[in-house]
């Protein structure tokens, strides 16, 4: 039993170190800012299969580009929001750029500074499909009808569908798309995610999880063997 205990201990030692080091780090995720430290390593990004999205959506307004890569939204080359719904359209009302996402309207200045985010709580119609500007009013084609609001976005009124040019996407020039690549790729994978995956074994896929499961069983056997040996010696 001594021999088994020794070999189990040697085998388990590697996993103990990995689990202890990652566990200790994860206990202090917030203090270390692990969820906001993003991974830039191309090796790790490739390992996770993170690449540039193939179908970026872009709209132009007042000589600016509003583009969506994955869930990141960019005003020219400046990220203005992440974790966004699908980009539907862009319109201009005076000096305000209106960016329509699936369930949200973002209002920005002409230089991309965020003025306000409006959602259902502010009366934005659900299920937006398209937007258009018309005589300093915003028209929204939504799931349950067409709505109009003014530049204050205080009240929404349902109207019969007008004949307007709804905002439509434009092909993004390849050069602009490539310029966004480093910013996008460096904003997807957090350090916290990688450490969590090492801790659980998921970084090696399902087999990594099984290996960690085996390690856990090994720890239990190690503890049991150790107690048995101690009890035997104690008697």
């Amino acid at each position, binding site marked *: 039993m001594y021999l088994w205990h020794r070999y189990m201990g040697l085998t388990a030692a590697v996993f103990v170190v990995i689990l202890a080091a990652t566990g200790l780090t994860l206990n202090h995720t917030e203090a270390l800012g692990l969820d906001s430290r993003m991974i830039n390593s191309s090796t790790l990004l490739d390992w996770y299969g993170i690449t540039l999205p193939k179908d970026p959506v872009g709209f132009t307004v007042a000589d600016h580009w509003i583009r969506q890569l994955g869930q990141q939204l960019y005003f020219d080359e400046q990220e203005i929001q992440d974790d966004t719904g699908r980009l539907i359209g862009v319109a201009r009302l005076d000096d305000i750029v209106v960016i329509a996402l699936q369930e949200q309207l973002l209002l920005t*200045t002409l230089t991309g*500074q*965020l*003025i*306000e*985010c409006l*959602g*259902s*709580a*502010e009366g934005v119609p659900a299920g937006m499909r398209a937007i258009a500007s018309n005589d300093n009013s915003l028209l929204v084609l939504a799931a349950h009808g067409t709505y109009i609001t003014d530049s*204050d976005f*205080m009240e929404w009124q349902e109207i019969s569908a007008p004949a307007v040019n709804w905002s439509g996407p434009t092909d993004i020039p390849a050069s602009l798309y490539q310029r966004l690549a480093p910013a996008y790729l460096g904003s997807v994978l957090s350090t916290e995610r990688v450490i969590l995956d090492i801790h659980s074994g998921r970084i090696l896929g399902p087999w990594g999880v099984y290996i960690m499961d085996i390690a856990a069983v090994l720890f239990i056997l190690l503890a049991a063997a150790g107690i048995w040996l101690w009890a035997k010696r104690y008697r």
Partner: protein
Amino acid sequence: MLWTDKELNKDVEEILGHKPGVLRIRYWQRDGKTVWILEEPSKEQPITTGIVINNDRIEQVKVLIYRESRGMEVRYPFFTDQYKDAGLQNDRQLDRTIDGISGATLSVRALTKLVRLALYLHHQIDVTP
């Protein structure tokens, strides 16, 4: 609508722990009351909250949209009623202690920040009776 400026941003950052991130904040006003719809992330997702203020005191707090998978106890009146009649001290803290909920610490913290923020913003506008 309340447009932010440098000084307001500084105070808001002190309350929320981060910059407001927007240039203006909308509110509704009638008969001396103001209503604010504000959002603050709990762990990862924002909690959308409606806050009614009357006579510089909280009249009602209502969680409108809760997106996290845990901590949703903060939606219920047994928790939000604690904020009723709360006011803001000179140091921009609430004038009372709010009892937390085990397992919902971040949600409680987010809601308390929003209540403090609403009271602060209420003081920044001319409230017509």
